[in-house]
């Protein structure tokens, strides 16, 4: 793969309800900020990739509506309807395809619709949708299966909430910085067993943007480029009942491909920090298993042993993760931005010392049907 890099980035602060900003404001604000960050102007952008979802936006062909705010006038624009990590991968492919410097911008205002109704819409309209299942209740099925299979306790996964909300206190963009204990999670409102309110990510508003460029353009960027060393995605079956929900096969495959591309043979040794898409507490250990950081069923031990805390060997979600801010679609792009900040040494209070190689991860579809894995590096 040719050398390509992230040369500009920006994200909004994530909030429960942004009554002062509409989609266009969010997209314009992050696009402008990403250009400033890169030291470029809109004239330097050749392609625009927007990331949005029609159901969340409450309009059809939602990608086209934000073109003007994304600087797409007189340029090509295309939209990825899915998580921002996948949108960014498409953007990277535009650059690799020789189409020039590419802006990827994602937005979502969860506050303006009804997330349960919207996520119910991702299920099969004939066989599943009328049962009322949604993102939370389907994930609860997965959580229960995972806990049952490996004898993991609700307290084990509650620790993820404690860690990540605690990490969020160091992140000025996070929505839910909190000092909580396992007992707070355990006694929070029951949603769908084993998930309680504090096992679940919040409804959020926010946007994020990155600029991806080839090596030549990266040379004139205002800040050190963050090099893209590996990226891959892989999908599992659509119907929940077809899958082994406790075995993230598609993540394992995506990770292996991304590692191979980046020349990583021992991810635990070579990767210094990870930002992964834990929309619910149980997802963090399960995805860490899929990423090959431990054996199946051992995910919770990584946190119990202090491996994934800020001062551990592999800090996971220093930003506070998706549990601390979940602008849907934006969240995977935010993971990439957080890793890029780590590798630039600009992550402030959430900086992991000596981070040279990082992993960012996004998911798409119910219960992590599809996974996207990014390996980013300080070195070319």
């Amino acid at each position, binding site marked *: 793969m040719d050398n390509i890099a992230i040369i500009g980035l920006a994200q909004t602060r994530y909030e429960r309800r942004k009554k*002062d900003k509409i989609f266009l404001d969010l997209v314009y604000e992050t696009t402008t900020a990403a250009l400033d960050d890169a030291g470029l102007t809109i004239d330097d952008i050749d392609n625009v990739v927007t990331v949005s979802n029609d159901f969340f936006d409450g309009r059809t062909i939602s990608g086209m509506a934000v073109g003007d705010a994304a600087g797409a006038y007189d340029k090509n624009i295309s939209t990825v309807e899915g998580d921002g990590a996948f949108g960014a991968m498409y953007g990277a492919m535009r650059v690799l395809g020789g189409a020039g410097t590419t802006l990827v911008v994602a937005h979502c205002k969860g506050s303006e619709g009804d997330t349960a109704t919207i996520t119910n819409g991702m299920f099969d309209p004939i*066989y599943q949708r009328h*049962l009322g299942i949604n993102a939370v209740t389907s994930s609860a099925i997965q959580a229960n*299966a995972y806990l049952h299979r490996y004898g993991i306790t609700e307290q084990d996964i509650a620790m993820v909430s404690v860690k990540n909300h605690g990490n969020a206190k160091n992140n000025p963009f996070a929505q839910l910085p909190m000092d909580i204990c396992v007992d707070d999670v355990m006694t929070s409102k029951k949603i769908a067993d084993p998930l309680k309110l504090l096992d679940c990510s919040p409804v959020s508003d926010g946007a994020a943007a990155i600029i991806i460029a080839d090596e030549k353009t990266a040379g004139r960027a205002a800040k050190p480029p963050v090099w893209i060393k590996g990226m891959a995605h892989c999908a599992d*079956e659509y119907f929940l*009942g*077809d899958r082994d929900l406790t075995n993230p096969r598609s993540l394992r495959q995506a990770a292996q491909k991304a590692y191979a591309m980046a020349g990583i043979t021992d991810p635990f040794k070579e990767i210094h920090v990870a930002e992964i898409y834990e929309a619910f507490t149980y997802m963090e250990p399960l995805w860490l298993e899929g990423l090959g950081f431990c054996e199946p069923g051992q995910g919770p031990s990584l946190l119990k042993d202090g491996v994934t805390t800020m001062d551990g060997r592999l800090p996971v979600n220093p930003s506070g993760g998706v549990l601390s801010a979940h602008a849907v679609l934006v969240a995977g792009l935010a993971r990439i931005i957080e890793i890029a900040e780590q590798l630039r040494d600009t992550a402030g209070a959430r900086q992991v010392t000596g981070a040279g190689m990082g992993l960012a991860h996004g998911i798409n579809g119910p219960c992590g049907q599809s996974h996207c894995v990014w390996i980013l590096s300080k070195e070319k």
Partner: protein
Amino acid sequence: MPNWVDEVEPMTFKGQIAVPYTWWVGDTGSRFLEAIRDQATFLGTRCPDCDTVYVPPRKNCGRCFTALDQWVEIARRGVVTAFTIVRANHPLQPVKSPFAYALIRLDGASVSILHLITKDLARLSIGVTVEAHFKEASQRTGHILDIDHFQII
């Protein structure tokens, strides 16, 4: 710089998108729903390459990418492979909480079907046997909710 919301009232605009659809269910789905409506039975399709029996039936095996045309009759009984007991209510849920969503592998099927368990939730666990309870024949319309619920036995 003062925030504009201090100077101007932030206005909202309510919308409601109600877009009607009429989805043809297709031959595979129509056979499945007709069997539920008329016989209160389940039909699945078997993959000739990997022997996976899909319920609800699929027209091609996702794993082998093979067309499926072998129909198999599936039992009304099966085991719970995964579940959650729902504690919160939402208007789209067809019953009031607490109730359970369960993935149920019916005898004769290789994969699990998603449905509801509404009673005896204290006895619910992974591995318990459940049986489909259908609505009265006169009430059945060829709908996934023609199966009223699954009962733990």
